[in-house]
């Protein structure tokens, strides 16, 4: 390689320690005291692979930092007290009205502190971004199989971050004590009271007596600014440490294997890109805070337990349990003089916990069904795990339908439809929808697998129609470039489910090795898991495919180098001056 042309900024020799420089002096001072050189020599040039989808988790990380920074600013003025005051700030419409100090200080931040409204809006937008990017990041990790061994524990930490982030959001938007947030707290009190046995006591303890009391805002404040952020910080640190320890996953491709990681070094490129991205996330949040109004608490007025606004809805990430609550039939039973509120307990207390446990267990369920105990560092395309992909799409569909049910009043108003019919429809849809989504996604993935195989075996479509001497028409296919063909086929063959369900015997009467009903279930699930998947071509199929292609190619010799050979599309030659037909004809 001719490196003489390389610009002076890119040195070709390794840096040496011949000359002591200032960086070296500082590093030496620090190492004398902290002994960081051993760590630095390994980590400073640590490799991070590049792909746009690896950025989603970064959005979550950086929006959390934005939340910490803007949140500290807000605490300087926010007064988490339910003591009553008469508002006397700048906002004319509410002046003189009795309200809690929490609400009054929220108005003060919005109207009398320069940059206060900006920080409030940035804080709220960053919270939305935080939860949304965690969810999309979770989907990315699941769809690409990045949760597989050895990363299951990091999946668990990520799930905890998601649920804590959601709770953090709920406690946060309850703090201003406006009419909307107070309505949310009122509903939360109803949820707590629906807990069997301890519900009433929990409500009285949490609210310091009867709802609404004067304790809930200061208590939520402590949870919001100390308890949950502390847990989030600790878990984020653990999440990052495990990421560094495991090294990031990468997509298969030329030179990228299970044993290596290819990408840019932490210092300088990755640090610069990630650090720069922090400023971009921060800057975009600032722009949203400047241009997009969010949670205009002054429009709702102070909380009054006898008032409510139509279209009361929680922040979007709380929407799905709220939807479940809306479409739940009104069941309640009374046993031995005690009340069990199934209509509240099932959708809001049990369903989210069950869904969360399912989410936590997904990696272990996947590993149990597949029996796969190997380490995985290469990502899988979603299509190459059709059942897994379909499972998540089914869960997403269920989530989406519950979420839509949380806006059944808005849908009814927008579509001029009957809210009753929408609710009845949703009751069925949340069960049928995911099932349909599962099967469609699964077949879709398998079709895409077949399409990949087709391309590997017979090449890609050039868009050139050939006419044979007999007058038949066919589209010309050309083999994939080597690197692409390698990336497409760099995946495992699915194991052939062998063995027999428990209790079964093979043709020779030998009983299956594993026993127990569980093993039988596992066998059936594994069979279903891989059933119908398209496997990548065998070497024989590939050889035959190539042979076939060569044969075709022979028929088309004479075309090579001309516009009709199709090779202009893979850059083999240019055809600017050529014409398929004689232009003078």
């Amino acid at each position, binding site marked *: 390689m001719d490196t003489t042309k390389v610009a002076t900024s890119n040195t070709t020799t390794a840096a040496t320690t011949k000359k002591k420089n200032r960086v070296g002096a500082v590093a030496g001072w620090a190492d004398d005291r902290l002994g960081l050189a051993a760590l630095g020599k390994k980590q400073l040039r640590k490799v991070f692979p590049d792909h746009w989808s690896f950025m989603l988790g970064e959005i979550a990380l950086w929006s959390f930092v934005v939340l910490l920074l803007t949140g500290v600013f807000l605490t300087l003025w926010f007064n988490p007290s339910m003591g009553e005051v008469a508002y006397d700030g700048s906002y004319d419409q509410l002046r003189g009205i009795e309200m809690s100090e929490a609400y009054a200080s929220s108005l003060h931040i919005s109207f009398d502190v320069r940059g206060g409204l900006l920080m409030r809006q940035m804080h709220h937008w960053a919270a939305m971004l935080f939860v949304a990017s965690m969810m999309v990041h979770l989907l990315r990790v699941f769809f690409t199989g990045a949760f597989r061994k050895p990363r299951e524990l990091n999946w668990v930490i990520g799930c905890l971050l998601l649920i804590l982030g959601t709770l953090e959001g709920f406690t946060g938007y309850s703090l201003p004590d406006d009419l909307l947030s107070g309505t949310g707290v009122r509903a939360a009190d109803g949820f707590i009271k629906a807990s069997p046995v301890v519900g009433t006591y929990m409500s009285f303890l949490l609210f310091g007596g009867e709802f609404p009391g004067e304790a809930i805002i200061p208590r939520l404040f402590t949870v919001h600014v100390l308890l949950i952020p502390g847990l989030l910080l600790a878990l984020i640190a653990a999440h990052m440490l495990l990421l560094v320890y495991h090294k990031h996953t990468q997509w298969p491709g030329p030179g990228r294997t299970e044993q290596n990681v290819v990408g840019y070094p932490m210092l300088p490129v990755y640090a610069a890109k990630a650090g720069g991205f922090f400023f971009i996330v921060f800057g975009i949040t600032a722009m949203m805070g400047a241009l997009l109004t969010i949670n205009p608490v002054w429009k709702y007025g102070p909380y009054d337990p006898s008032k409510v606004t139509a279209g*009361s809805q929680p922040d979007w990430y709380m929407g799905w349990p709220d939807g479940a609550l809306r479409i739940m039939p009104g069941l309640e039973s009374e046993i031995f003089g005690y009340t069990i509120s199934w209509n509240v307990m099932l959708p809001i207390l049990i369903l989210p916990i069950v869904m969360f446990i399912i989410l936590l267990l997904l990696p272990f369920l996947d590993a149990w069904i597949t029996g796969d105990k190997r380490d995985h560092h290469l990502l899988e395309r979603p299509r190459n795990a059709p059942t897994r992909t379909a499972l998540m799409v089914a869960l997403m569909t269920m989530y989406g339908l519950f979420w839509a049910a949380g806006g059944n009043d808005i849908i009814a108003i927008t579509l001029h439809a009957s809210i009753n019919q929408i609710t009845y429809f949703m009751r069925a849809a949340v069960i049928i929808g995911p099932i349909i989504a599962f099967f469609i996604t699964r077949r879709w993935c398998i079709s895409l697998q077949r399409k990949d195989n087709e391309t590997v075996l017979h090449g890609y479509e050039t868009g050139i129609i050939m006419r044979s001497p007999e007058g038949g028409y066919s589209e010309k296919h050309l083999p994939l470039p080597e690197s692409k063909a390698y990336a497409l086929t760099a995946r495992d063959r699915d194991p052939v489910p062998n063995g027999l369900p428990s209790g079964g015997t093979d043709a020779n009467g030998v009983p299956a090795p594993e026993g127990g009903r569980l093993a039988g279930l596992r066998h059936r699930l594994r069979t279903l898991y891989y059933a119908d998947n398209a496997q990548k071509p065998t070497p024989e199929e590939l050889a035959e495919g190539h042979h076939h292609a060569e044969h075709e190619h022979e028929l088309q010799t004479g075309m090579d180098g001309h516009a009709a050979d199709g090779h202009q599309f893979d850059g083999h030659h240019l055809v600017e001056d050529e014409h398929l037909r004689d232009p003078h004809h």
Partner: protein
Amino acid sequence: MSDHDKDEHGHELSNVPDEAVTDDLYPNPGLPEHHWRPTDVDPKAERRAERQVATLFLLSVVCTVLFVVSYFTFQVGDDWDTIGGFGASNLTLGLSLSGALLFIGIGIIQLARKLMADKEIVEYRHPSASSEADRAEALTALNTGIDESGIGRRPLVRNTMLGAVGLVGVTAIIPLWDLGPKPNQVGPGKKYDYPGAGIENTIWTAGMRVVRDVTGTPIRPADMEIGDLINGEPAGIFNGGPDGEPLEGVVLQINKSKGAVVVVRMEPDEIIPAEGRENWAVDGIICYSKICTHVGCPISLYERTTHHLLCPCHQSTFDLSDSARVVFGPAARALPQLPLGVDEEGYLIATAPFDEPVGPSYWERG
């Protein structure tokens, strides 16, 4: 790969086919050749990129200055409608802050893309597990430690210690008991007593007037037309203090959250009276708790033709002509009804308090 999992020449090693993947249809072509960028080979392009990056950083400086200027120029207040409805201060502070941050971010990323070395390098992975030798050694150490502690041989010590440590957590839980009064401590004649105290009680008493929620004025039956809905409150929240003063603070909020009612008037023959409630309405004026029996939202969306009352939170719908039974939605119980009468001065009063707890269900409700 013990000693060279990380080395500067990794990119050369990567071209060695990987033995572990036996099922490859194609040989691993190895990393694609590195292409030099224009900024690597053309000093002019390099200089141009330098200028671009520096310009971006300077633009950030300009935005920071603008931020400081807008901070001192634009006042806040309730004239936040200025500049396209955004508020002058909010808009200028936000956009200049945004610019100051974005230009730094774009500048750094431009720097990384154009001017920093862009050669991908290769690092080898460690297995996440430790080596067998390390495992064995660690296990030995663990066993030695356990052995030397004698915990295994002394079950009495072990069990009492585990029990003590497990139990000591109680000291963190029990003090939470004082977070608030217990449900059975709140009520008339109990430790925590105030007007309307107790989860099963409200401030309503026999003879208490039903008043309008904002003004506190009493209601005459003649004030109401057929189809009207009045948001009512117990007169007690306006005069229920020990010396007849209005309730305030927590006690006011608690009583609003339990005492609020809706009063509606319909044709008397439209009312389907439940057994024992035949005389609970006055000339077609009927009164129910405003607090939803689902999770406690106040209800106020009334459809006068059908007499349906819809909760805006979760759309439970109650038929006010038929004892407010649930006709739709997730609520399980009818709204409690307040028996109405008229006092000597001709104002609407409650002839008795609610005969059941209002608001959301709870375990002990029965």
